[in-house]
């Protein structure tokens, strides 16, 4: 049960669900949630390779920590941009934000 391909398949499933979410949602917060799923599947891959393959088991955990920190920064910036956009457009539908469209 506890083998590398199981984790890789779960991570691929999470990544494709996140990809689907980014491609088909029109709600900005929904897209942000899908991005979090993508980052988490990458993290799961790092941790699985770290557990089963790498020579030094510290590297993958450190990378996972850094990815978590970057995800926190990304969520803070993204949510504040969404709030600013909502105040301007009174909507968080991505297709409404087309003021720059020619």
């Amino acid at each position, binding site marked *: 049960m506890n083998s590398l391909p199981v984790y890789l398949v779960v991570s691929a499933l999470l990544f494709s669900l996140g990809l689907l979410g980014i491609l*088909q949602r*029109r709600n900005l*917060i929904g897209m942000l949630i899908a991005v979090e799923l993508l980052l988490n599947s990458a993290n799961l891959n790092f941790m699985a390779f770290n557990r089963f393959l790498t*020579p030094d088991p510290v590297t993958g955990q450190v990378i996972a920590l850094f990815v*978590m*920190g970057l995800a926190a920064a990304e969520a803070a910036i993204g949510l*504040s941009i969404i709030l600013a956009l909502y105040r301007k457009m009174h909507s968080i539908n991505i297709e409404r934000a087309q003021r720059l469209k020619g």
Partner: protein
Amino acid sequence: METSSFSFIIQAAFWGTIALTVAGASIAVFPRNILYNVLGLALALTGIAGLYLFLGSFFIALMQLLIYVGAICIAIVFAIMLSQPLHLEIPPRATPKVAMGLAASAVFFVAAVSLALKTNWLPAAARVSDASLWSVENIGHALLTRYELVFEVISLVLLVAIIGAVVTAGFSRRLSQ
């Protein structure tokens, strides 16, 4: 007998955690109600923390719960409260776009799964299978010696992100008044 039932319990917990993760991820993507999406995301992140426990890293599982479930999900809930997307109009989705998105993610899924199953993964020759290397002391030591520059840059990035978030959210309020 005793050990076999114990290993059965562990196996059931492992597959249960995987089912929880996948179910949470699909709740996070498919329903139209954004509040269900956030709760599904929290469920999926908790399941991934459980998978980190099965991978043997208690510290990263704890960090996952603390940062993702505790901070990011709550921040998203706050953004939902402040922007009230529940009361706004929901335009219908164009079916060709949904079909193309489904096709793209299905292609990616098939490619990644076949790559993961076809490859013959070999552990590195210099691999040290020592459980003591997984301890928090080792992670802290690596953070402050080999990865010190990255650590500092991450803290700088977080500081800039905090200031940027405050400026972006506060500045637009002053502009729109």
